[in-house]
């Protein structure tokens, strides 16, 4: 196809010279003559404005830009200066808003950001295969012990102690690969803690079903998850920005994991029902293969999804935070109000510490994800006030509870569970107290919100250290009971 269109053929005396001029002129426009850079900058700015419209994609932009350049070239032929030609061409193109809404009507699907990754990009495909490899590694890890006679049903405690290792060692490996961390450095940073964890949980002579064992099972994933953060940060784990990225990643990972788990649940139960309809009992296969391998593999798959999609869909954790912050703030204020109104001390009960640990952890999570999605330049607003109410009322409620516990500390008895719960309470309380103080400083315009972000990221290793203490030091301290 040499000619550009029928128009040129119909009126050669007018159109053809123009067309030729156009083909001649285009390189000139791109060449560095004295007027072109200005025109190029104008076109680039126009394109950038259209680029922000979700309904217009890059191919459309190329098409529209080609049109604009054709129009400018034609107008230039008619004797207009490039900037005048540009203004007229843009005017004739239509306003960005009109264009965007016209395109949105035709391409409404583009307004729904696609979750399924684009298959086109070549490196992405490679990354996908490597991800599948690591996911299979995690899935295999749960099956390999069976070769040596362990079984999910009979050796539940062995699996409970090691499950986080099965899942998180491949995940750390995936991030080491993904970030291109040199093997020697990765081993230096990660190998010792992972091996130590594996040794501790498997060599310690836990009594069957003892409290210290349950505590180790609960705290090991926390410590190891933070260790994975070192790999996630590509070894740059001291950087506050990377730590905040890991916080964001963790929230998104959790959302994706829950979604995958829901889908997996549907798959498993449908498989079971469908096979039982033809008289085959698939229950054993489903639970020992589909669910076990799926749950482990999904840890890596969810991470890959977060990484692949981080720029494509809006992060869910901050959205959920926005939704639930007012509700939890209202709940806590109501709780405080009820405590004052009824003048009832807290009924001391053995789970009260754990309940308040959960409340504090939740408040901390809401605070963290509100900060993580926040534009640091945004001034103090009504949502900040809510956040402050949330944190302060949680602190007051916790202080009342601690006072109640302290007055009866002699009845308490230092069981491992209580020490762990108390320690967690102290760790969270310390964080939230300083957070509240920093937030107040921000509310009064004395501090930037970034100081709160830095405090949160600086505090992260405290959780890892505390969780490691519970895993490593508690069992011998309490005689593995």
């Amino acid at each position, binding site marked *: *196809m*040499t*000619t*550009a*269109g*029928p*128009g*040129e*053929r*119909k*009126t050669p005396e007018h*159109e053809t010279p123009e067309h*030729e001029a156009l*083909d001649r002129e*285009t*390189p000139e426009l791109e060449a560095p003559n004295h007027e072109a850079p200005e025109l190029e900058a104008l076109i680039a700015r126009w394109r950038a404005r259209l680029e922000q419209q979700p309904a217009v994609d890059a*191919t*459309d932009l*190329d*098409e*529209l830009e*080609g*049109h604009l*350049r*054709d*129009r400018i070239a034609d107008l230039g032929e008619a004797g207009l200066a490039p900037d005048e030609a540009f203004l007229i*061409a843009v005017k*004739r*193109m*239509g306003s960005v808003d*009109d*264009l965007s809404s*016209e*395109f949105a*009507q*035709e*391409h409404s699907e583009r307004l729904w950001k696609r979750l399924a990754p684009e298959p086109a990009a070549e490196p992405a495909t490679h990354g996908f295969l490597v991800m599948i490899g690591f996911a299979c590694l995690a899935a295999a890890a749960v099956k390999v012990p069976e070769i040596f006679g362990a079984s999910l049903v009979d050796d539940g405690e062995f699996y409970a102690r090691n499950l986080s290792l099965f899942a998180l060692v491949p995940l750390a490996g995936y991030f080491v690969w993904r970030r291109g961390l040199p093997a020697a450095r990765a081993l230096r940073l990660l190998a010792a803690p992972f091996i130590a964890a594996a040794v501790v949980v498997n060599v310690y002579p836990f009594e069957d079903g003892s409290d210290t064992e349950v505590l180790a099972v609960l705290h090991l994933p926390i410590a190891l998850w933070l260790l994975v953060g070192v790999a996630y940060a590509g070894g740059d784990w001291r950087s506050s920005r990377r730590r905040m990225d890991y916080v964001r990643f963790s929230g998104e990972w959790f959302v994706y994991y829950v979604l995958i788990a829901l889908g997996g649940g549907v798959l498993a139960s449908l498989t079971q029902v469908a096979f039982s309809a033809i008289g085959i009992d698939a229950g054993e296969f489903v639970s020992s293969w589909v669910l076990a391998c799926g749950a482990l593999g999904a840890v890596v798959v969810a991470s890959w999804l977060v990484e692949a999609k981080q720029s494509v869909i809006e992060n869910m954790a901050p959205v959920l935070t926005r939704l639930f912050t007012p509700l939890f703030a209202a709940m806590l204020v109501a709780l405080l109000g009820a405590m004052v109104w009824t003048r009832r001390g807290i009924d001391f009960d053995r789970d009260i510490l754990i309940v308040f640990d959960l409340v504090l952890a939740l408040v901390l999570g809401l605070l963290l994800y509100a900060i993580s999605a926040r534009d640091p330049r945004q001034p103090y607003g009504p949502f900040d006030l809510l956040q402050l109410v949330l944190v302060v009322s949680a602190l007051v409620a916790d202080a009342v509870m601690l006072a109640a516990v302290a007055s009866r500390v002699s009845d308490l008895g230092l069981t491992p569970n209580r020490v762990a719960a108390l320690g967690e309470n102290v760790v969270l309380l310390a964080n939230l107290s300083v957070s509240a103080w920093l937030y107040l400083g921000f509310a009064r315009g004395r501090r930037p919100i970034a100081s709160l972000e830095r405090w949160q990221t600086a505090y992260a290793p405290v959780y890892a250290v505390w969780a490691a203490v519970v895993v490593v030091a508690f069992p011998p301290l309490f005689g593995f009971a």
Partner: protein
Amino acid sequence: MHIPKDLVAASATPLVLGILTEGESYGYAILKRVNELSGGELQWTDGMLYPLLHRLERLGYAEAAWKVPAGSRARRRKYYRITEPGRRALSEQRRQWAVITGALGDLWHEMSPPPSPALQGS
């Protein structure tokens, strides 16, 4: 002369399909052809042509391909070519328009002659 939006929208599809029967073409050339066919009376907002072309492409009435026209350093352009379903749709629309223009033509014929464009102003 101002032509109302509804009328422009209704006539756009047969116009573009009709122009494409003359040979494959790209957006800017199609617009120039519309301009020429209507004697400059039918002025579209340039950008609005593209969603229409994309709709024709989605309906299967036209196929599009990026090509670099001959000419050493010319820019690549997205060319549209009418398809067989496109031709069928066009002939369907052509029959519909024939009914409308025929009816209107009879009516105009019975009425007084149309006012000359010169008196219309612009």
